[in-house]
Structures are given as C-alpha cells and as structure tokens.
C-alpha cells in the first residue's frame, strides 16, 4: 500500500484511491476509486527512475481491462458503484487486461440484452404479449417470435403462462423486448414452459453461480431425482419433478444453497440420498 499512500488524493470523492490489486476479494463500497495496475506502476515512487520509460505503444500492451458490473470508468480510474466484493479474472488468451467486477447481492433484476429470463404473461393485446420479467416495465413479446409461428398459426399462450425467452432490446430508455427464438429462427429450448411445476425466486447471484460451467450444486442435485429445471437470469427458477414432495424438496434445497457452505450442502445431500 506504500505506493498508494504516496499518491496525492485528487479523486473526486476526496478519498484515497487504492490499487485494485490490493483490494481483491475484499468488500468495497460505492464511491471508492480504484487504480488499475498500469497507473500504479507509473505513479509509484521512483517509477520513472527505476524502469526505463516506454515510449512506444508497447506500454499499453497490457491491453483493455474490462470493467464489469458494479464498476464504472471515471477518468482513468475505476469507480465502485455497488457494494460487494471486488473480483478479478485473468485474461485467458493473454489479450486484454482481464475483467474486474463487484460481486454484490441483489434480488431486483435489470433487463440486459441477451439474457435468458423466465417471464409471466400478463396481457395479450393485438399482436404482442406483455410479459412481466421482474424489471421496471413489462417486456413485449411478439406472437411471431416463436418457432414455427405464422400469422395463421398463433402460439398457444394464455395470460398467466410462463415463458422462457431472451431479450433483444433492453436499455434504460425503452421497454424491453424479448423473443423466444434465436438468431437462426430455432427455439433452442425457449418458448412456453409446461403446465406443472413450481416457480420460485432467488437472488441473482445464486443464479449466476448455478449457471456457471461445472457447477457442483447442479450436478449433485441432478443425481437426486429426475427433474426439469429452467433458470431465468431474472432470479426465477422453474422446477418440476415427478411428485409434489420432490418438487418441494428441490425448491427448498436450491433456495437454501444460497446460504450454505460447501460442507453443509454435502451433508444435506448425503442425508437426502440416503432417505
């Protein structure tokens, strides 16, 4: 932290800017400013003297640092906008400077383009359905945005049905629009979700954890019973198993996974597997 201490505090917030490297995995609060590694080196004590000055663009070879959720560019520093833990991912192929983001707990969903979500149909008006996705506005879904839908062949969608689709338009100025087909025109798993089953809500962080590749929780849950699960990035999960009891058990386990450590989870799964 010696380098950061010698940096004059010129940030807008008036607080000392810290090097992002030193606060990894710690809690950061909104308003804090973070220095990227490049700036650190340049502003360190005696930096100019100890290292040869690089006049060519090779200095920038560290590449673009991607600013993830919870962070915002402020001049040449990163400004924290959400409270949570700071995370960093190294660049895989060596290009770019990696990704920085803030892991925060959130239940309120903000529509993002490309996200796959579970929505509830609230209204049918003319050619479009109004679908509640948990955001500030209901998304609109055209009846032609289903696989195999034509003007004569309308999809069988009623008010109150569950829809799994993705956003094609989602910004803060317009109402979001979603579709149930991908760019090739195929459904690819999207569309109306079946009649039975249970829909419940969890935090967004848990969904991201469950949808990460090689998620242990999912593998263990999959070994319990045969079931169908749909995860929506808006925090909604739809679960269906053979009996109501199994469905309830699955729903309770997934909700509880948020707050359990790995050991506790393994205990519960082993107990369930025995019974």
């Amino acid at each position, binding site marked *: 932290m010696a380098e950061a201490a010698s940096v004059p505090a010129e940030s807008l917030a008036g607080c000392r800017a810290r090097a992002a490297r030193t606060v990894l995995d710690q809690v950061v609060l909104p308003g804090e400013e973070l220095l990227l590694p490049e700036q650190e080196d340049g502003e360190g004590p005696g930096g100019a003297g100890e290292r040869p000055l690089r006049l060519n663009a090779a200095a920038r070879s560290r590449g673009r640092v991607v600013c993830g959720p919870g962070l915002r560019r402020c001049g040449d520093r990163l400004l924290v906008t959400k409270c949570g833990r700071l995370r960093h991912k190294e660049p895989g192929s060596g290009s770019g400077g990696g990704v920085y983001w803030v892991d925060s707990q959130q239940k309120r969903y903000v529509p993002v383009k490309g996200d796959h979500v579970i929505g509830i149909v*609230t209204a049918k008006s003319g050619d479009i359905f109004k679908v509640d996705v948990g955001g500030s506005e209901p998304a609109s879904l055209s009846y032609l945005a289903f696989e195999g839908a034509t003007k004569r062949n309308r*999809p069988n969608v009623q008010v109150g049905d569950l829809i799994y689709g993705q956003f094609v338009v989602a910004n803060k100025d317009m109402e979001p629009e979603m579709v149930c087909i991908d760019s090739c025109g*195929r459904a690819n798993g999207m*569309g109306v979700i*079946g009649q039975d089953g*249970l*829909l419940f809500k969890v935090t967004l962080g848990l969904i991201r954890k469950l949808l990460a590749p090689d998620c242990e929780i999912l593998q263990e849950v999959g070994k319990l019973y045969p*079931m169908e699960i749909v995860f929506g990035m808006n925090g909604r999960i739809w679960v269906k198993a053979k009996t109501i009891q199994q469905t*309830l058990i699955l729903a309770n386990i997934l909700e509880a996974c948020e707050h359990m450590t790995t050991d506790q989870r393994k205990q519960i799964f082993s107990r369930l597997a025995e019974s």
Partner: protein
Amino acid sequence: MKETPMSNCERRFLLRAIEEKKRLDGRQTYDYRNIKISFGTDYGCCIVELGKTRVLGQVSCELVSPKLNRATEGILFFNLELSQMAAPAFEPGRQSDLLVKLNRLLERCLRNSKCIDTESLCVVAGEKVWQIRVDLHLLNHDGNIIDAASIAAIVALCHFRRPDVSVQGDEVTLYTLEERDPVPLSIHHMPICVSFAFFQQGTYLLVDPSEREERVMDGLLVIAMNKHREICTIQSSGGIMLLKDQVLRCSKIAGVKVVEITELIQRALENDQKVRKEGGKFGFAESMANQRITAFKMEKAPIDTSDVEEKAEEIISEAEPPSEVVSKPVLWTPGTAQIGEGIENSWGHLEDSEKEDEDEGGSDEAVILDGVKMDPGVEVSNIGSQDAPIVLSDSEEEEMIILEPDKNPKKIRTQTISATQVKAASKKPVKKRKKKRAAN
C-alpha cells in the same frame, strides 16, 4: 410498482400441494412459522418476526384531556402502517382497502376486548388522562400481517412503562424517569389473532398462510382469542360459506395456538426484564449480533423427507419390469413401423430438448405401472374407446392421426394401450380446454 402476477402454474401447484396436505415451506396444516420477538432499548418498542413477516411496534403516551362522554377513561389509539419496504405493491396511494381492513380488525381486537384497563389511565377525572398510542409498522410482508401485528401490539403494550403520577389532593406530580421507575400498564388479558385460510370453497384450511398461499386462498377467517379461551373478535372475509362445525373446529385450534403464543410472549418479556435488571445489554443491536455483511445465517427450514422413502419403496415393490413393447417396433406395412404410441404434442413442448423426451419416457413408465394396478374391468372399457383416432397435435400444419389396427392386439400390447389411454384420458380434459382457447 405493480404486484408481480401469479402464474397459472404456481397457482395450480399450490392448490395441488394443499390438496396433498403439503406446504411450500414444509409446515404441517396447523403449524405456525417461527415467531421471534425482540425488544428495543426503549420500553414499549418491539419487533415481531413471524417467519419473514416483520412488524415493528412502538407504544407512547401523553397526558391529554379526556373525551367528554368518557371523563374517567384513558384514550387508546391504534395505527398500523404498511411501509413501502414491505412489498413492492405497497405504494402511498394504493393500499387503502387492505389498510382499512387491517386497522379495523386490530381496533376491534384490542379496543373492544377491553384488554387494557382504561380506568387506570385516568389521572384527574375530567381533566387529565393518559393517551396511549400504539404505532405498528409492517417492515416485510410475507403473509399473515394481522397475526404478526396483533402479537406486536400486545407485546409492545405489555412491555411499555408509563411515567409514574401521584395525586395528592389538588396537586398532581408527574415523575420523570430518573425520579421514579416507570409503571407498567394494567393489562387484563392478551388477545391474539389467529388466521385461517380456506381453499377450494372451504374444503382445505391452513393456519398462518404465507404470502403465496394468501394469493390463492378463497377466504380468510380471523379469530382473536386470549389464553382463557375467550373469543374477542371473529371475522370471516372472502365470501366463502363456512359450516358451523368448521368454525367451531377453528376456534378450538385457535385456542391451542393462542396458549402457545402467549407462553412465548411471557417468556420473551421475562427474559428481557431479567436482562435489564441484571444490567446486561439489551436492545435491537444485541438481537442482531449474528448477521454480518458478508455471511448469512438462515434458519433451518424443516424439510419433511419421510414420505419420499415410503413412496419410493411402494413404487419399487409394486413395479413390474418395464414392458418390452416400448422397444419392439410394430410393423404396419412394409416400410412403416411404429414404436410406442407417441405422446401428445402440445405447442409448448415442440422445442424442448431430448432431456424432456427422456423424462417423458420415464413418466410413461410410471403411468404404465399405475395402469397395471387398475382392475381389468376398467381396462376393458378403455380398450373399447381405442377405435376413435387419437389426434395428437392441434396445429393445422401437422395432422398426426394414428390409425388403429382392426385385429385384436396381443395381451402385452393391451396393457400399453390401456396405460397410455389412461394418460390420454387424463390429458383429454386438457386437450379440450386447449381446443376451446384455439377457437377463441
């Protein structure tokens, strides 16, 4: 914000689960959620948590002149507010119906039952009486506001201490908190509301409905009782018809529950009093010691898995090995063969992955087992109806009609047909509904 709508599948699932006597959080029909009572540093301030529903209660007092027609009685004032943080649907202008209903019920429960001795609140007859004001704030809405609010109100009233007053002739001395210890209110009994939610026109009832159960309920019965089994208030809303013995049964259940809750309240009050007397730390900050910013501790929700074992054993013991017809293709004409009957094509299932097909195959087997258990009489009638062509898809573009053979099929085939007929029969009502909607 508008309330999140409840989807059809949630509603259906909840009602089916209630028919099977299962609740979402694993409770039994007559179980209450965990009640947690914590007190603040001031007297008369408490937070009651009924599961995730949280109500904050605060009692305050003031010396005022009495009402003209009740010169020797103190004044009680109750106020329940639905804070906007309780639910996204609570907005400043939009809560009037629910708010009025809850306030009215609380008033009837606490004021008309005369649980507080208002005569003891009189200081100088006709001139000065105590006005006791109970403010309740709903902090989080997860169902059953009325129960939590009534518990918070009575706990806050029992916890409250008013300044001591002494009257000597014409002189009235009001002592401050430093001069003399404050005095508790004189409370005769503790009325507590117990809510019963009714489903399917009064066939099923649940105690302490959670928020989702409240959304699918038909009607609500609230009984306010004290531990001496005296009913203080009873209210039925939702317009359902209740039978006399149902109401009597509910009152018996309420009696039992109220005794438990009253014990809990007494214990909490005693604990708090002990801590204050011993000089220990008290207040809300102490009761929240376990929660930290990066780690959560959630109460264990009891999950009842006892059923699963029995059901699994039943299925295993009564199962026959899966019938081999599934893998044996039936040759209709040279070049045309059929494996199995196929499943009904509904629009939503068109694009589902193979995983669903496997699951459907699995559920097919489960249905076959059920079919085996049926008595042969039913089987025969099912075979008879197989002559009608089975339309598997509503779409105009693909009309799939399975033509049935004229000859009598072999015995094994019979079972399959009857089993899938069972499935088709159970799906027929669904199909009919779909056709009606398509016509719309």
